[in-house]
């Protein structure tokens, strides 16, 4: 019944390089905490059951579905959301690659795709198309047919390598 007290917790985590504290119900997901408590609405919820990948963020550098991670599980961890990649005036190379490739249409899947791509490129800085498709296989996009996204990530990888050399 409804009268049960709801568990709440204060969670300390690092988000996009800043130390943050959020007070949340224990049952709330990391996505909820990011969006509602921290106002980081770039992380999108497309299914809330772990399939679409829209909510993907980096947790200690690895991609996770923030709809499946509890906010309290992020205690003491490092989270990177799309807001932590680049700004409109200073795009991350992967964002720039996607801009050049017209990678996205409605933009709803975009943040999750970008995060998955960044995670891939951290492991493999020169992936071929098959590797890119494999890495993005858990991110659904309804608009593009994926080809432009693959091209955007490929271009992003190129820009990232150039950055590395520069």
């Amino acid at each position: 019944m409804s009268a049960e007290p709801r568990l709440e917790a204060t969670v300390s985590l690092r988000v996009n390089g800043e130390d943050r504290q959020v007070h949340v119900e224990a049952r709330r997901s990391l996505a909820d905490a990011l969006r509602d408590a921290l106002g980081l609405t770039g992380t999108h919820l497309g299914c809330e059951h772990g399939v679409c990948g829209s909510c993907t963020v980096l947790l200690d550098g690895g991609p996770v579905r923030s709809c499946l991670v509890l906010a309290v599980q992020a205690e003491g961890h490092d989270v990177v959301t799309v807001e932590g990649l680049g700004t409109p005036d200073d795009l991350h190379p992967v964002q720039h690659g996607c801009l050049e490739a017209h990678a996205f249409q409605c933009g709803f899947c975009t943040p999750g795709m970008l995060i998955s791509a960044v995670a891939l490129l951290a492991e493999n800085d020169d992936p071929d198309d098959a590797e890119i498709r494999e890495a993005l296989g858990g991110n659904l996009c309804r608009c593009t047919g994926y080809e432009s996204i693959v091209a955007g990530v490929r271009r992003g990888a190129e820009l990232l390598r150039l950055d590395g050399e520069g």
Partner: protein
Amino acid sequence: MVARLTGTSVHRVEDPRILTGRGRYIDDLAVPDTVQAAFVRSPFPHARVLGIDVSDALAGPGVVAVLTADDLARVAADLKPAGPADLRLPVFGALARDVVRLVGDPVAVVLAESRALAEDAAELVEVDYDPLPGVGDMDRAMEPDAPLVFAELGTNVVHRSTHRYGDTERAFDGAAHVVRERFVQHRHANVPMEGRGILAVPDPSGGGLDVHTSHQSPHALRMHLADVLGVPGHALRVRCGDIGGAFGQKSGLAREDVAVAGAALLVGRPVAWIEDRVENLTVGGQAREERLDVEAAVGPDGELRGLRVRMVLDQGAYPQVGFPTTGYTSIVRALLPAAYRLEHFDFEAVVVTTNKATYVPYRGPWEVETWVRERVLDVIARQMGVEPVAVRERNLLTPASFPTTSCTGVELQGFDPRRTFDDAVAAMDLPAFRDAQAEARAEGRLLGFGLANVVEPAPVPPSLIRAMGIMAAPRTVQEARSRLEPDGTVTVFTSQQPHGQSHETTLAQLAADELGIALDRVRVVHGDTMLTPFNLVGTGGSRAATLASGAVVGAARAVRERVLHVASELMEISPGDLELVDGAVVARGAPSVRTELAEIGRLAHLRPGLANADGRPGIEESATFDSAEGTWSVATHACTVEVDPVTGLVQILRYLVVGDCGAVINPAVVDGQVRGGVAQGIGAVLLERSAYDDDGQYLASTFMDYLLPTTTDIPSIEVRHVHHEPTGGIDYRGVGEGGAIGAPAALTSAIEDSLAHLGVRVLDQHLPPNRIVELLDDAGYELG
């Protein structure tokens, strides 16, 4: 010198925002004091509601209100979908009152301080249901003893009509071959990645509402909502921000819209509802469930002489407010001959109601005409033992045929279907493929080739609307406004409502070129009924490139004229000797004699009478664009596949679209539209299905059951454009629908081709691996 933007793949204006997570989707809005809504929904496809006990729910933490149909009735009238006289339409409430008619039917809405609390409380609403037999199948629905979805209609067959063109009796009497098949298209759905959502903010002074929503047609929603809620039009504002896809689903008036807006009026606080995925898949709207029985009379050389078609469409339980389903059957009828010769044609349309989700328009809502027509041509080819290419060549209209009027009364002109067809067939190198196919077959591998021709009416020709039987054919006219700001930038107001189509870029490209300014000097404003010109449909039916383009160009030209007038006064040079270059008005031939646009914008605002004789400040002009005779874009889709006989998996080896869509504003945007549409068509065939059992229980409410294509399911899609015949005017033609229309036809054609030698016929559009294995089994195929 600013280079011409139109025709080039300039980067999207939307992207810096979209790519950095700064988009503003409906769930990103935060208005203080908002309460969150959660719906209590029926688990039964059909049941009587004997009682609703909300007391436990009301006592839940953070609960503000629990509203049922009776509560809502205090502020909202019943929904009365409009449609033609021969379509029986029920009247129903936004919340179900005495009877629920589908799984997910909303019976109450809970308002609470957070969505989680609202969902908790929704679980506590006790609804006493008395289950009734449901009907989840169109054939069962048509039986005389079937349970009635709406008892008051007295039948589940809500529409029946017949049309005859020419003399099919004669065509069949003289036929060399007759083909008879039943083609079944499964129910599937638009599935935008962002579900629906609405935030209704009551005006504190009472009576009014500011509605934020994820919708394709803000003006239509405003009209419908004002009507149902009795809110004066001037007090209701609808606004849309970024929209995470829609594909037709976010059109019309949804019952949730009424419930949420009504709830806001009742509780006097902002109310938000963000649809979750289960809701979206269950009740967000579904499409395409149609069956066509076809008889074709064929001449000795494979010419199509006559067709008899009976189409049954399953519209689900509650008809959509805004789009009567007879619109789909009649456009299928009108377009079915497409770019092929056909003189004799009988068409019967039947619409049935069942205990399923509302049938909504989905990208190219008439898609089944292409699928069935192209399937019929393949069947003819197999029956006669000739190439599918040959049958199409035999029947396609040639350049000499144009202009022409189809037997259904549709005037066709301005395109050449043989151009795209011949190009596509040549590019696929069919003879080489046939060799490869034969070799593969010898090794037990299954390769197939398929193709389809699509004509897309965009902008819609008036003759098509007349052919659909809509007598007072509304002219497809659209308005845009353009304003020169005091700083020399330009704002364009469009009635389009983009949801991924990149209007902020393409419309800005057009305006920037007309005014000789850079892209970043133009801002496109959309999605606010207070600011933008009225347009009933919003974005849909590829209206942006085709209609908004003309209006935007017209409004920009009108602004240019005003600018030249002002400059002429200031510079004392006649307007004819001035031009707009690089953000300034310059004297022709003497570019150093110039006045910056910013200066003109400033003075036009500050000096009464300078820009307008009547003293109006500023330069703001509007223009309309009338599509006149309309235009057609055409495309040929061709693909090759390999089918794995063990797993039933289909691998697409190559997919090619050759299209003619007139002039192209932004090639990357156009290709993106085509590819996205093709991907949806591929998903429809290989994966997606809104499955129900026979009683109407819904079986696909998560992404684990409703499968969408991922990166590994969609191949690289080649898109080629053939040169259009420039008309010299505004000649941008629609491509938004064509990809999704052509893909199911081309893909099923290829799959059948790969299995045809085994005797397999593809008559269902849904071909997931298990279905392919079944088809092989049924054909007696033994694994080697």
